[in-house]
């Protein structure tokens, strides 16, 4: 079973990101589960969301403490939240960041998702761009299934913009040296 934890701020779409990722895996024939961290959500506050992906039915319902992958939607969050908490040895942290960052035990991939979101969507909602980055960094889901989910989830005009965000982030994501 693969476990993914999303870190974001209220309003950046972390909960939607988890859902879209899990649904993309579901479209690929896998079992998947997505759920928010049930906190007192408000715009700007650090939030968490989770996704699990497996080849068999997923029964466990606890929060995710030892993720395989972590996705960080906000560039400043690593300064205030321990985003690497519990990550498995060799896990990947996908960052919205202009520059690389190092974490013990984990690999890092990064992309400037805020700039991509501003260019494609006109708002700093980085969730879909970060899904493109996630697909590139982990290979866990294909770009095609992400695009398919986006088409199902958003109206056509909004879907188009988000697909641009995903594609741009997919192209620009780099592994940390």
């Amino acid at each position, binding site marked *: 079973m693969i476990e993914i934890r999303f870190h974001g701020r209220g309003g950046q779409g972390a909960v939607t990101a988890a*859902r879209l990722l899990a649904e993309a895996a*579901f479209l690929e024939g896998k079992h*998947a*589960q997505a*759920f*928010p961290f*049930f906190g007192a959500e408000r715009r700007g506050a650090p939030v968490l969301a989770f996704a699990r992906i497996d080849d068999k039915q997923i029964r466990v*319902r*606890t*929060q995710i403490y030892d993720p395989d992958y972590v996705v960080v939607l906000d560039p400043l969050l690593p300064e205030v939240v321990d985003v690497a908490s519990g990550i498995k040895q060799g896990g990947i942290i996908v960052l919205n960041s202009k520059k690389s960052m190092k974490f013990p035990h984990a690999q890092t991939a990064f992309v400037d998702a805020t700039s991509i979101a501003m260019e494609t969507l006109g708002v700093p909602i980085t969730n879909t761009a970060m899904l493109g980055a996630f697909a590139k960094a982990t290979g866990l889901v294909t770009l095609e299934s992400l695009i398919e989910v986006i088409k199902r989830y958003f109206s056509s005009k909004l879907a188009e913009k988000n697909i641009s965000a995903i594609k741009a982030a997919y192209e620009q994501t780099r592994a940390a040296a």
Partner: protein
Amino acid sequence: MKKFITGNDAAAIGAKLARVKVISAYPITPQTTIVEKLSEFVANGELDAEYMKVESEHSALSACIGAAATGVRTFTATSSQGLMLMSEIMFVASGLRLPIVMTNVNRSLSAPLNIWCDQQDSIAVRDSGWIQLYCENNQEIIDSTIQAFRIAEETLLPVMVCFDGYILSHTTEPVDIPEQDEVDKFLPPYKYPYSLDPEHPVTIGAVGVPDFYEEFRYMLQKAMLESRGKILEVGQAFNKQFGREHGLIECYRSDDAEVLLLTMGSLSGSVKEVVDEYRGHGERVGLVKVRTFRPFLAKELAEALSNAKAVAVLEKNFSPGSTGALFSDLSGAFANAKKSPLLLNFICGLGGRDVSVIQIREAAKAAMEAAKTGEVKEAVRWLGLRETMVGLRP
């Protein structure tokens, strides 16, 4: 067809597939998106039903009673404080033997103010004469919702379908959605035998003087006890048609188990993982999941548990000054038994606290220790409690 949906959507789609005719609900906190979704179905013509938006949960269930008495299929949904406000009318619904179906999204009660998951709300109305079904996952939500109407209509008892707030209500996962024509076969149009009809007047809600009241209460008890057979039958009929069985209880790797964990709701899934873990190490641990909490399955549970040496009951509720509700009922089930396992109670997951695998292992270990020594060190324990904060430790 499999879709990727939340628990709330599963409940709403289940009610829609049941072709409910009246939905009455209070739309504001602590309401969930279930009734929002249903109001969309009604507004866009997907569901031919009367949607009554009322000013409180008390009114919502009162309206359901009026609607159900005219003989139509009736549904409402609530949660937490909303259920508390309904509670007065819940006793009326069961006393009048009206087959209303309600979804309750299990959430804690104030104070302190808390909107997160536990099962204190539905446990607080366990004596209201409603059948209570608890769901482990989103598939069980849609299946149980459809079944609930048939159970209600065949027993003339109201049914609550309960599922864990947020842990299921806001979790998206794959759900096999039954086809409408299949559901129509399973759940034919409803005919209430005593419906209000100006041509054939009947009295509903008459006084029960001391000379009669007790007999009416006994008839409710009899109906509740007999509903066990009906819940089982409906589960089997559903399985035959849809290939998924949901009975009274579910036994998971329990046959030769020395230690059994007993729980209800979404926690069952995590417990199954822990059971597999112990089995992998050769430990004889199993799970018994309570799907039907009311009527209480004293006989079935006593049978399922009697060969174990120790049983750990994990539950997201407690009765202040007593124990967890499931534990106290279970203790009663073994009252006159020749053979009883040792019983341990673990209160956990209150007000949305995550019940981790580590906590479930802690309960299993304590039960294994009891099984080995034949002694229970601590009958009731609270998992994950900060003991220094509550003065249990310095």
